[in-house]
């Protein structure tokens, strides 16, 4: 089955622009369901992008980040065809990781 992480990393030669979309409910713990019961918090806490063995970007997230979170950033360097590693861990300890090729 498909990964929970979608990454698009495009190199312009000088910099690499990265966009990522992750499939995750990002329940804040402040929302009630149809029955009026509070949906327990369930959200990604940390997200890391690693290139060439070094982190190029990392996030600490709370439940205030939208469902199916999206983030965009850019870093200097990054060659077409190289790998970009992305991983996340949520407040329940679940985690996922993927490797994307820079285009």
């Amino acid at each position, binding site marked *: 089955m*498909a990964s929970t992480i979608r990454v698009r990393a495009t190199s312009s030669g000088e910099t690499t622009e990265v966009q990522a979309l992750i499939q995750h409910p990002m329940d*804040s713990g402040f929302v009630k369901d149809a029955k009026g019961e509070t949906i327990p918090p369930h959200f990604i806490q940390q997200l890391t992008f690693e290139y060439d063995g070094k982190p190029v*970007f990392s996030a600490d997230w709370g439940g*205030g980040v939208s469902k199916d979170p*999206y983030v965009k*950033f850019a870093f*200097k360097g990054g060659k077409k065809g190289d790998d970009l590693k992305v991983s996340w861990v949520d407040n329940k300890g679940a985690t996922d990781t993927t490797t994307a090729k820079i285009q």
Partner: protein
Amino acid sequence: MTTTGNEFPATRRLILQGAGAVALVGLGNLPFLAPVLAAANDKYPEEAFKAKNEADAIKALYGKAAEASDKVKMDAPEIAENGAVVPVAVTTTLADVTSISFLVHENPVVLVASYKIPAGTVPSVANRIKMAKTSNIIVVVEAGGKVYSATKEVKVTVGGCGG
């Protein structure tokens, strides 16, 4: 009728499968994941995410207060199409940026996201955040050991026969 449910069962299923996959290859993955996360951040800033107001959250993150700066540019809509998904981006001309954070004054947890910007990463981030209601969004940039901020009000209105 179950037409207004908000759940997205596929999401949950995918995540459970993701977790299962990790468990299956668990040992193989650990040596890889652990150093990545450790190198990235080490520690999740629990305290900052518990703060009830932006001053406390900023203090917990950076150990000092932020000063307003017009070198911090925020791009956010005047009126959010939906409080559940508000696109907000920040960019800055400040040098030596090490961190960028997003806070929403009226949210039950004011700190939404905090990003580490290593040397060589462009000081510019776009993400999508939730807003409980009309509120100020505060973006904070840590640069050269100092902390700067910019604030913008975004209107949030929900409901109705729309779409």
